[in-house]
């Protein structure tokens, strides 16, 4: 059995300041295949490594519109088209009375769309990822900050990357395979 392919080089930082500086320098030098793994959202990292696209908000907006339409349509179709009943002489399309349920369906669809879009956007569930095999990676969800430079990057050079990571305070740098 051959050794699994190299995924990248991971550096473990004790503080958020170190990982931010390293990510900034790597980004400035043209590295694009980077990812940081931190126990909480570290402020500048999402600007350095995140992807600013409004698709999450757009999905929620789409959910909102679909929910509003469905919530209202079910009621108006049932109460004034499929089985109209005259109640106290009110119009069949008594829309003010339909707004409450329509509002609830609107927010339900909006939130569900956001939840699903969040999971898809985060590629979850994903039970295996090469970084899980890195030495002390279980501390990425507790008190350590990890920066992984992926081998897929055209500028990837293990020695140079290792130097940059160490220079910014990485206490441990190791290759990730898988």
């Amino acid at each position: 059995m051959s050794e699994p392919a190299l995924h990248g080089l991971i550096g473990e930082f004790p503080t958020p300041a170190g990982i931010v500086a390293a990510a900034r320098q790597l980004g400035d030098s043209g590295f694009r295949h980077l990812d940081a793994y931190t126990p909480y959202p570290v402020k500048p990292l999402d600007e350095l490594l995140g992807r600013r696209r409004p698709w999450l908000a757009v999905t929620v907006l789409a959910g909102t519109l679909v929910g509003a339409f469905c919530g209202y349509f079910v009621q108006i179709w049932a109460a004034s088209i499929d089985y109209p009943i005259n109640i106290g002489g009110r119009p069949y399309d008594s829309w003010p009375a339909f707004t409450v349920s329509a509002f609830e369906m609107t927010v339900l669809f909006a939130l569900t769309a956001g939840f699903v879009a969040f999971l898809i956007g985060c590629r979850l569930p994903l039970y295996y990822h090469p970084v899980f095999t890195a030495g002390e990676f279980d501390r990425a969800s507790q008190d350590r900050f990890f920066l992984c430079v992926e081998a897929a990057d055209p500028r990837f050079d293990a020695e140079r990357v290792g130097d940059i990571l160490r220079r910014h305070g990485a206490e441990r740098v190791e290759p990730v395979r898988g």
Partner: protein
Amino acid sequence: MTVTADTDSEFAVVRPGVTLTSLSAHIGDTVLRPKTPRWWWIGFLFSLALLMVLVIATVWLFVNGIGVWGVDIPVAWGLAIAEYVWWIALASGGTIVSALFYLTRSPWRSAISRIAESMMLCAAASAGIMPILHLGRPGLFYWLFPYPNVMGIWPQFRSPLLWDFVCLLCYILMSAMFYYTGLLPDLATMRDRSRRRWQQIFYGILALGWRGSAVQWQRYKSVYYIMAAIMAPMVVSVHSVVGLDFAGGLTPGWHSTQFPPYFFFGAVISGIALVILLTVPIRHAYSLHAIITEYHLNALAKIMLTGSLMLGFAYFWEAFGPYYGSEVAERTMFTERAFGFYAASFWATIALNIAIPQLLWVPLVRRSELLLCLIAGGIIVGMWFERFVIVVTSLHRNHIPSEWGNFFPTLWDWAILAGSIGLFLTLFLLILRFVPIVSISEMRELIDCEGPG
């Protein structure tokens, strides 16, 4: 002035000495430790006993019908409806703390949001069973769904009772998604800290493979803000629609335009009261003094006081209306409510929800855990009386004098009340044992903002 301005100098949101390492270890151990503490077992067995009361009372009710309760004409809505409103108000308080105060970026919200949200889910379960128990034919509750059926008919979408069903259903589904999203990073922490096989598998599956990558955190933050912004108006709508159930009826004492906000004020005060009542014992049981500080209790106490003032405002107009207006039935009903057979319940409401909470103006009272718990407990009891007064006294003096009559709860009425408390406590204790009761990832951000610990 912000809610907590005067304590900034005295108490910190996080006491010095809490680090990322110690925080994960401390909260992780409360869930992952192999030995379950004795207080948990005592509480759990007690809750389970109460839950058995609910099972027995429900079986008895389903076998014999709702005649086993004290409900009859004219008081056909009894304790089940009062307790539905009571529980859903308690639940709403949890969402108010976690969603509304997330949007205001209140720092004290982080340490207690999980307690509040867990409380919300458990209270919603207790609330959700009440309308079904109250149905004469509970097996047909699914008729509330607009599903295509052989009868060719649909639910009455113009009825507030149906709105309420839609609200509750959406509320529970949305709260579950909101809860799970907030919990996801903490589940990953549990996965990484657990050393026993079943825990690794259990938390590993639940954590969905969360890695905390930069992109994941970015999306987490945006979706959490969006969810909080959706949940905040949602929770206002839920309890307002409960108010509309009543306002939509012509019964004196119910037919009032102020009911939606009035009910929401009740949700604020009673929900916060229950958060306090749960936070104080958890703080001691899990030794969370360093992250749930006097700052949190002080902030909660002030919101409870605000809720009490808002509720007092609504009480005032509720009393003013009948005497200012010219509806004889309203006036008769209100006079009877305040000075008749149920006067004690009415004045208990005023005393426990409005008069006694005014003690919270005194900083010394806000600092005393014991007094806070007593006042909060009083409010929860007082809010039960408020729902009882609204439901029962309004019906017992309806428009036609020939149908006046009193309501006497039976043993089975009280069994349902005790049982619903048992259901709440059982679920809450299970969450307390298996779910990190403080949002660790949010606390880390707070520690980061407050400077290195």
